[in-house]
């Protein structure tokens, strides 16, 4: 199994940390992982993206131009990455702020109302965990228990009290993901 | 007294410090570097720290200081002696580390290294020999060349409107919180040599107490570069350099 994922959105949405937790979760189940961020001035409030690869084998290129899954969290990223999903692959996005919805018919498309759900729950910080939950519902490449272990590894001990809240958010995401058909 | 009596140890009145090698000094007759070297080494010998000291030589006339100072030495790139000294001292905080630099090295190309080492309060001693000219490369203008002073790159005298003003590094570093002792001395008369040696001694004593950077400027001559006899050069130095670079302690520990 090799899963090649791009996660893209605004800086501050937790794009990089979502990727990191996914990578940690892969390690927890003894897989090979790589996490390659875009870095630089665009990080400062602009767009941010990260390529995450989880595989049973040694990972070759950490830089890719085609992905099994694209997780898209703003319009700029939709414009840039919709085309990069491999035929038959998955595009998961949050419709919040999206003005041009995806139009490809050779891929599977899903929506998660992450921003709205996070606001409903009164905590915008769990947005990325809701999206992660939605992704894991579509592609359960890592087990939830390993995500919790990954969270433990990636969060400093003083934040470990927040883990149940994050776990809860992942489950919210799992429950609320919906398939989307382009018009 | 016969010659064989004169050389008896009990009749000895002066002896070169063991911390100077027997190599013939490469400096011009009348130059202050030899004296500045000697008193620095005498201080180390008198303090009994010659074996615990690492010196850093600059680029300039004193680039070969390591040929004359009989201690462990490193030769630094032009201007970088305070950085080299920082590297040594940070790794060996119990050893003594000093730099020996001229005006081009310390006050032009190495300004940043000098100021930042002093500002961090590196526990090193900086000995700064200022003769207002580039001696080794043949008498070009230095950052410390006086207004109106001639050099091969200011042949009609330093025009401060065109060439900028002389830089008083010693006053400058005295303002930094990292320095504990900043003094300006000379070595052209026995009286001045005694005072300069006392200042260098104080600098190393303060280094021993880990009091931060100690900085001793020695205003010196360059009879070759100034195109004067040694006597004329010393006189010119007293009349022109000392008013601009007044001697004495500029900063002493409270």
């Amino acid at each position: 199994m090799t899963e090649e994922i791009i996660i893209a959105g605004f800086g501050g949405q937790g794009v990089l940390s979502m990727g990191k937790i996914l990578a940690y979760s892969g390690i927890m189940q003894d897989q090979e992982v790589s996490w390659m961020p875009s870095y630089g001035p665009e990080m400062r409030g602009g767009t941010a993206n990260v390529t995450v690869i989880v595989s049973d084998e040694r990972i070759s290129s950490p830089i890719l131009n085609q992905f099994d899954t694209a997780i898209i969290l703003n319009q700029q990223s939709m414009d840039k990455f919709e085309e990069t999903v491999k035929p038959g692959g998955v595009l998961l996005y949050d419709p919040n702020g999206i003005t041009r919805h995806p139009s490809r018919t050779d891929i599977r498309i899903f929506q998660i109302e992450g921003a709205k759900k996070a606001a409903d729950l009164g905590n915008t910080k769990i947005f990325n965990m809701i999206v992660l939950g939605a992704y894991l519902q579509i592609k359960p490449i890592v087990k939830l228990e390993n995500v919790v272990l990954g969270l433990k590894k990636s969060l400093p001990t003083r934040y470990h009290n927040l883990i149940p809240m994050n776990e809860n958010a992942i489950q919210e995401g799992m429950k609320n993901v919906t398939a989307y058909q382009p018009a | 007294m016969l010659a064989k009596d004169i050389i008896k140890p009990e009749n000895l009145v002066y002896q070169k410090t063991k911390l100077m090698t027997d190599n013939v000094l490469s400096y011009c007759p009348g130059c202050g570097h030899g004296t500045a070297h000697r008193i620095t080494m005498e201080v180390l010998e008198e303090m009994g720290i010659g074996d615990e000291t690492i010196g850093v030589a600059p680029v300039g006339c004193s680039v070969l200081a390591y040929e004359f100072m009989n201690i462990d030495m490193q030769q630094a790139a032009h201007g970088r002696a305070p950085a080299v000294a920082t590297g040594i001292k940070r790794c060996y905080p119990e050893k003594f580390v000093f730099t020996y630099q001229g005006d081009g090295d310390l006050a032009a190309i190495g300004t940043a290294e000098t100021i930042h080492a002093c500002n961090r309060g590196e526990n090193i001693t900086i000995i700064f020999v200022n003769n207002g000219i580039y001696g080794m490369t043949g008498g070009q203008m230095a950052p410390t060349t006086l207004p109106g002073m001639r050099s091969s790159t200011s042949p009609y005298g330093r025009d401060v409107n065109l060439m900028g003003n002389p830089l008083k590094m010693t006053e400058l570093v005295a303002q930094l919180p990292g320095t504990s002792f900043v003094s300006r001395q000379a070595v052209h008369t026995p009286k001045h040599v005694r005072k300069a040696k006392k200042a260098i001694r104080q600098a190393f004593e303060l280094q021993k107490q880990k009091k931060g950077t100690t900085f001793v400027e020695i205003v010196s001559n360059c009879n070759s570069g100034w195109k004067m006899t040694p006597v004329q050069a010393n006189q010119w130095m007293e009349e022109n350099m000392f008013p601009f670079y007044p001697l004495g302690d500029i900063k002493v520990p409270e």
Partner: protein
Amino acid sequence: MARELKLMKGNEAIAEAAIRAGADAYFGYPITPQSEVIEYLMAEKPHERTGKVVLQAESEVAAINMVYGAAGAGKRVWTSSSSPGISLKQEGISYIAGAELPCVILNVVRGGPGLGTIQPSQADYFQSVKGGGHGDYRLIVLAPSSVQEMADYVVDAFDLAFKYRNPVLILSDGVIGQMMEKVYLIEQRPRLTDEEIKQRYAWATTGKKDGTERRVITSLALKADEMEAHNIHLQKKYAEIEANEVRFEEFQCDDAEYVFVAYGSSARVCQKAVQLARNKGIKAGLLRLITLFPFPKAEIGRLTGQVKGMLAVEMSSGQMIEDVKLAVNGRIKAEHFGRFGGNIPTPDEVLYALETQIIGG
């Protein structure tokens, strides 16, 4: 030996591995994309963990000269920067090579020339293997292609630096520095004591011992004959390094008809391109260079007897290709493919280049 598993950025992994390798000091200055090195070191309080000195210098120039001072006193010392900062360090590197001091320098390369871009590049190849600063000298150049190798090579780099009393450059890039992968870390090695340094490194200026000759660290010899003799000595050392230290890795080369030659992150891209090529029935392989100096000339020479063509893939406009062509010596076709200015070639592009420039070219 138990090895600790972590998920780390390349920049963090090398910083942690250097602490564990028993490094005594690090002097650096922040620059993207490698500032995580000094940030990590400062956060880890190595002065408390192992007594390692970490200092943020006022410039790259000062940092490399601090390295000179500490190295001249026998300490295991290193610095890191990215391309423009490495250019600033070149004077100091030349002095370090001239004075034969051991140290480790990390370059997390970004695109140039000038201020360039902060995105990854491999355009500092010439600077790294052909000198960089003034004078006839060589650095030992190691090229990691993974986070694990960032951690492993810094340990090797210190060993090589002291074995040959020569600076070792770890030539990385923004991809390897910024990406996170699994890394297995070695156990903490003790730092040498001052007494051990004094015993082992007779040349180090640690303070003269009574009755012994004083030590002088210098790169200066005013007499031409002396300087020539020093140069001959250096060249002999470089020849010895070339004879003993060539390192490379081969990937599906046994039956290959075509090989990619690459290092660092380009080698990772090429590895994927090998898979894509094999899926299409093209017998491709990869020669991944680990040492760039010494350059694996003999292995390239050997492969010319087996393969039909070589494609050198670099994130530059074509630098390493010159050394590949020298080693190939006209026996087979060898061409360059590169993206540059901060762009990274994709596996598809690399495969297309192989098909058009080498196979169909």
